[in-house]
């Protein structure tokens, strides 16, 4: 039945026009979200003099000098340190967290309630509570002022969210598949390895990405546990840089741009997985 209402909805021109406000709103939001970023990128291509004269708009004289000045071995070291810290921590967290999530999600153990609470309560612990003891601990273990000092604490603090996501995900796997495997004689390790793991792709990538982002951006642990600049991770190096750069705003901006690239790349490549994983983790836990 063709009514005014249906015409209103189905006519392609009208349909397109109705979309306009949506696009306007969406674009406005995009501008708000991205303008600091744009500012950062634009400024990184300006010389200092030009920046002071023209802070926001497009650079008249595009210069790569700021980036050149950054591509020093030292900056490269910061990058490398961050990559190492992130790689080791994320791998450890994912492996340990996934292993632990299996019994917590699928085995009926009296232990489970307590252990789960202990892990999840960890999310509430502010890191500063543990800063000084960890400072002393890393010295006793002989790993102070070196990258390995970061591995333990960062992994420990990433475990709660990892376990939370993985447990929720594992719980969601249909009982039928697992029972079938058990009847066929599969032991727990086999169930874990042959059934749960292959299905866990999205959850694991989510957890990997969330942890990568938070470890990459971690500031306070490296601040306290690392002294020698050669061991600094990127955020720490940035902070140091901006103190060193003093009034060189474009220089600082270039450093910020370079520092943001890895996480952005990571996200662009793995967008879908992040979204579906976050969904799986956060939604099905109630």
């Amino acid at each position, binding site marked *: 039945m063709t009514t005014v209402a249906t015409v209103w909805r189905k006519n392609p021109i009208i349909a397109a026009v109705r979309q306009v406000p949506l696009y306007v709103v969406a674009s406005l939001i995009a501008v708000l979200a991205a303008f600091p970023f744009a500012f950062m990128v634009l400024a990184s291509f300006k010389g200092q003099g030009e920046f002071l004269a023209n802070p926001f708009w497009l650079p008249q004289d595009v210069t790569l000098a700021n980036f050149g000045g950054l591509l020093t071995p030292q900056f490269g070291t910061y990058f490398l340190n961050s990559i190492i810290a992130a790689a080791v921590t994320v791998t450890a967290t994912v492996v340990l967290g996934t292993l*632990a999530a299996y*019994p917590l999600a699928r085995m009926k153990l009296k232990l489970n309630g307590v252990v789960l609470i202990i892990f999840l309560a960890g999310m509430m612990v502010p890191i500063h509570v543990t*800063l000084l003891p*960890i400072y002393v601990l890393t010295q006793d273990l002989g790993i102070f002022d070196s990258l390995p000092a970061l591995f333990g604490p960062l992994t420990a603090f990433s475990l709660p969210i990892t376990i939370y996501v993985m447990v929720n995900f594992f719980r969601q796997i249909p009982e039928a598949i697992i029972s079938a495997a058990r009847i066929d004689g599969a032991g727990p390790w086999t169930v874990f390895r042959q059934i749960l793991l292959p299905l866990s792709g999205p959850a694991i990538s989510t957890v990997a990405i969330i942890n990568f982002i938070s470890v990459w951006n971690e500031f306070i642990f490296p601040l306290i546990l690392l002294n020698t600049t050669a061991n600094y991770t990127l*955020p720490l190096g940035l902070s140091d840089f901006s103190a060193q750069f003093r009034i060189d705003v474009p220089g600082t*901006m270039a450093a910020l741009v370079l520092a943001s690239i890895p996480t952005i790349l990571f996200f662009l490549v793995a967008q879908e997985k992040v979204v579906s994983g976050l969904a799986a983790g956060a939604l099905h836990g109630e």
Partner: protein
Amino acid sequence: MNPLSTVERTFGPENMSSRGRKPSTISAPNRTRHRRPVPIWIVGLAFMAPALLVYGVFLIYPLFQSVSYSFFDWGGPGREATNVGFENFARVFRDPVFYRALLNNAVVVAVSIFIQLPVGLVLAVVITSRLRVKRFFRAVYFLPTLMSTVAVGILWGFIYNPSYGIINVVLRALGLDFLAQGWLGQSSTALAAVMVTTVWTYAPFYMIIYSAAISSLPGDLYEAASIDGANKLQQFFRLTVPMLRPTIITTSVLALIGSIKFFDLIFVMTKGGPSGSTELLATYVFKQGFTNQQFGYASALAVVMLAIALVATSIVLVRTSMGERTPRKSVT
């Protein structure tokens, strides 16, 4: 039937070592061997052990150590520590800065839950609407959360700069000179300024969660509602929001915890100043510990902070689960 023995029988020792072997299809009883089966809780523990070890050493143990520090007056490693019992805790409750920080944290919590979450929700609605190039917009919206907080802090420090920051320059260009001020330098505006940055940074994180939730809502309800004449706004408030209740609760808990622990942005942007207008519990703990070298007192503050987080979270969870009777959803 004793469930334990069924499990024991199923997870017998020969199956513990069946890595890589295809499960046999012979029926169960024929494969019983004579070794004692490994109890399930040992299996579970084995899986959990590595995680528990790392967690125990690097989180639980330092946590307990910190609690023990809070009973001392201690100037740092290499210095004498005097046992003062509960004096540090008494001092916390006498400390006006503590109450100021608590107030500021309350503001952060309020902004988080009542501004950040709704903004995230709005963003999610935009993302899940009939927009083309959704991926592009989603990536752009998520940019803020991807940057390191140090970078965000430095960047927004420039944006708020009284002389050449974007905000003041734009205000002056619009002829609104009188509004241009030292945003981060005045105790009246500093907290608000940092809150704007916070919402900018963290709302996208919630956007992702909400958009996933919205995508999984059944579309037929919306169809039915449209046919019944409900407009988009009504559909949003009467359908979307109620159906998102569990997600809203989860994100509220996350926001609550995050707000109580909030540190990085404030530390980089204002260090808790000026005049304590942006001092938070976490920055105060850091200040007392690492700047004033009062590690005992700082630990006491941290313990109180943890207690507050635990109590607040429990309250939220208890009150919300009282209204919830929905059983666990499971995908079949």
